[in-house]
């Protein structure tokens, strides 16, 4: 016997309201966790990138230091070689000037060129030629000039001319 004209709806634990509620919170929670997961992943990637960047930075610094030390070395080498080349050229000019200084009538037998001095050995027809033509220019170059003469059998003189530049003045050049 039926006591109602309507068909009874089956009762479930998940009513339509509950379903709506669950759907809403499921979507909300899913989005929250997705955002959290994204943040965690980005954090992990940042750390990775940061470590790579630090390594690259370190490599660059090492390479720059190496290049800088190479540049410094080349500059040092350049300065030293320029100094050596200049010294050789100055030496050549000095020797050139020395031989130009000696007049044709005086014959040199030996020349010793030192850092601060010059010793010349040779023969001269007479002392005057030596004094006017060789000693005078030597005096204008060197601070101290000493000459010794030894008479030869043919009337000429053998001479030793010792010339020095004082150390203090030499440093200035």
């Amino acid at each position, binding site marked *: 016997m039926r006591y109602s004209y309507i068909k009874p709806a089956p009762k479930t634990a998940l009513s339509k309201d509950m379903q709506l*509620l669950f759907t809403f919170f499921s979507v909300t929670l899913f989005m929250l966790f997705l955002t959290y997961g994204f943040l965690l992943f980005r954090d992990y990637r*940042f750390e990775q990138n940061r470590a790579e960047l630090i390594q690259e930075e370190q490599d660059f610094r090492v390479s720059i230091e190496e290049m800088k030390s190479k540049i410094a070395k080349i500059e040092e080498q350049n300065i030293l070689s320029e100094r050596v080349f200049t010294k050789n050229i100055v030496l050549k000019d000095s020797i050139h000037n020395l031989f130009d200084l000696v007049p044709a009538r005086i014959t040199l037998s030996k020349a010793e060129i030192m850092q601060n001095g010059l010793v010349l050995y040779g023969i001269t027809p007479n002392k005057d030629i030596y004094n006017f033509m060789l000693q005078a220019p030597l005096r204008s170059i060197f601070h101290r000039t000493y000459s010794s003469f030894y008479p030869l059998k043919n009337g000429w003189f053998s001479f030793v001319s010792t010339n020095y530049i004082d150390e203090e003045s030499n440093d200035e050049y």
Partner: protein
Amino acid sequence: MNISRQHIYMLLLSLVLLTFVLIFSFAVLIPNGKEYRVKRADLKKEYRKLKQLNDFSDETSATLQKLQADHRHIITAFDTPFVVSRFEKQHRGFFSSLKLSKLEKKENEDGFSVYEVNTTSEINSPKSFYKFLDAVNKSDWIVAINFPITFKRDSEMINSSFTMKVYSNNKDVKISSENNSHSELDSESKQKN
């Protein structure tokens, strides 16, 4: 007011879930998000710094390459071990005879190794000596002619003696004697090939 038990459960569940969402958002997500923004800014800064370093490295590299190209002769000269026989061979033309004594290691100068070598030679004119001095500056080594220099007339020839300083990089340079000079020359020519 008639509220069903089901509605009460639903309200409680909603409140619990909402509380969770709020706590999770404010306690976890928002701080993490802030941290993410800070880290992103830091990383951008790091990238900018790296780019600056990269640019500086490129500039330094260009400077180094230019220096290396401009001073190739000098760099090679400092690295080349001094070979007595090779020097004699290269500069024999300026003298009637040229003899070099064994290399002697001197104290380091300006961070470079210095070797001293005594030289005796015979020339027929001082002009040969001038040419030799010009050639020394273009030789395979950095060589400085040193005082004292002695010129002594011997009939038509002039005997000259002087010391030379050979500069090389401050490392253990294998000093080449006449016996092993040929083998070193061979190895150098092989390297060049």
